[in-house]
């Protein structure tokens, strides 16, 4: 398949997933003396097509999955999956971030481990850190937090489920 430019990638997703692509942004930055540029493509997709978006991404090039991050935005949680494509050639890599909003009333997302097995650790992490249920995850255990960590406390949450009560008082 032909190598796509960042604009063509956005177009490709708009084509395939139509109105389920909520927002797109292309960010170009330069560095060094020669001002070579590197691009980041930000895609916001609807929750219902998240897994399809990852599948379509594999249609461009097998992506390198870096990590998933999450922000507690109040009534919803914004999950971001950071990928990159076209690595393996000088200065051609494009970062692609697929983000999805999950309302706090329905914190579920599909596992992408069947497409990219390397996503397992990130999925275990978002489960324990944000209290999101990853459906179809091959390994459901905690990863970083100890087994006796209190249930219902999620360190990355900014609401009442955050870890405030576990923090040591330094003046004690």
């Amino acid at each position, binding site marked *: 398949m032909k190598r796509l430019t960042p604009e063509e990638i956005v177009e490709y997703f708009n084509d395939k997933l139509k109105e389920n692509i909520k927002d797109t942004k292309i960010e170009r930055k330069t560095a060094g003396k020669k001002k070579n540029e590197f691009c980041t493509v930000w895609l916001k997709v609807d929750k219902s097509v998240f897994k399809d978006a990852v599948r379509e991404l594999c249609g461009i090039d097998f992506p390198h999955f870096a990590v998933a991050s999450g922000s507690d935005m109040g009534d919803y949680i914004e999950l971001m999956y950071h990928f990159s494509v076209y690595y393996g050639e000088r200065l051609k890599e494009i970062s692609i971030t697929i983000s999805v909003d999950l309302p706090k009333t329905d914190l579920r997302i599909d596992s992408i481990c069947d497409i990219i097995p390397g996503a397992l650790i990130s999925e275990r992490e978002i489960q324990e850190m944000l209290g999101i249920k990853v459906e179809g995850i091959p390994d459901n255990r905690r990863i970083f*937090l*100890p087994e006796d960590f209190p249930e219902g406390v999620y*360190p990355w949450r900014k609401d009442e489920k955050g*870890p405030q009560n*576990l*923090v*040591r008082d*330094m003046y004690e």
Partner: protein
Amino acid sequence: MKKQQLETLKKSLWVFHMNTGSCNGCDIEIVAALTPRYDIERFGMMLVGTPRHADVLLITGPLIKKMEDKVKRVYEQMPEPKVVIVVGNCGSTGGVFHESYSVAGPIDKVIPVDVYVPGCPPRPEAIINGVAKAWLKLERLEGKK
């Protein structure tokens, strides 16, 4: 103090190193202290693989909650007389990680500490100095017996 240092060593110190959540900065400086430039083995000090053989417990890193019981267990396994050295700021006070939800606090909350080596990370010379101080204390403890 000076006179004491000139006395011959009665025994060589065996050191057990334990990481309770360190960033590895102190750990590589401890290994640097073992290798040719600083060569702590000149003074008869040696890292051993089990606390049961050790005179000195060298601890790096803030105390992560998951490691709390493990530190206690290692300390109890060591034979008397024993001394504990904390290398680095995090173990002495909590350092930059003092406020985290997963840090239980400085090491001295759980076990008694004899020597603190401050620094982030301390230089190998400081670590050797700390171990030498521990040796003086050990000699005193031995003398009391």
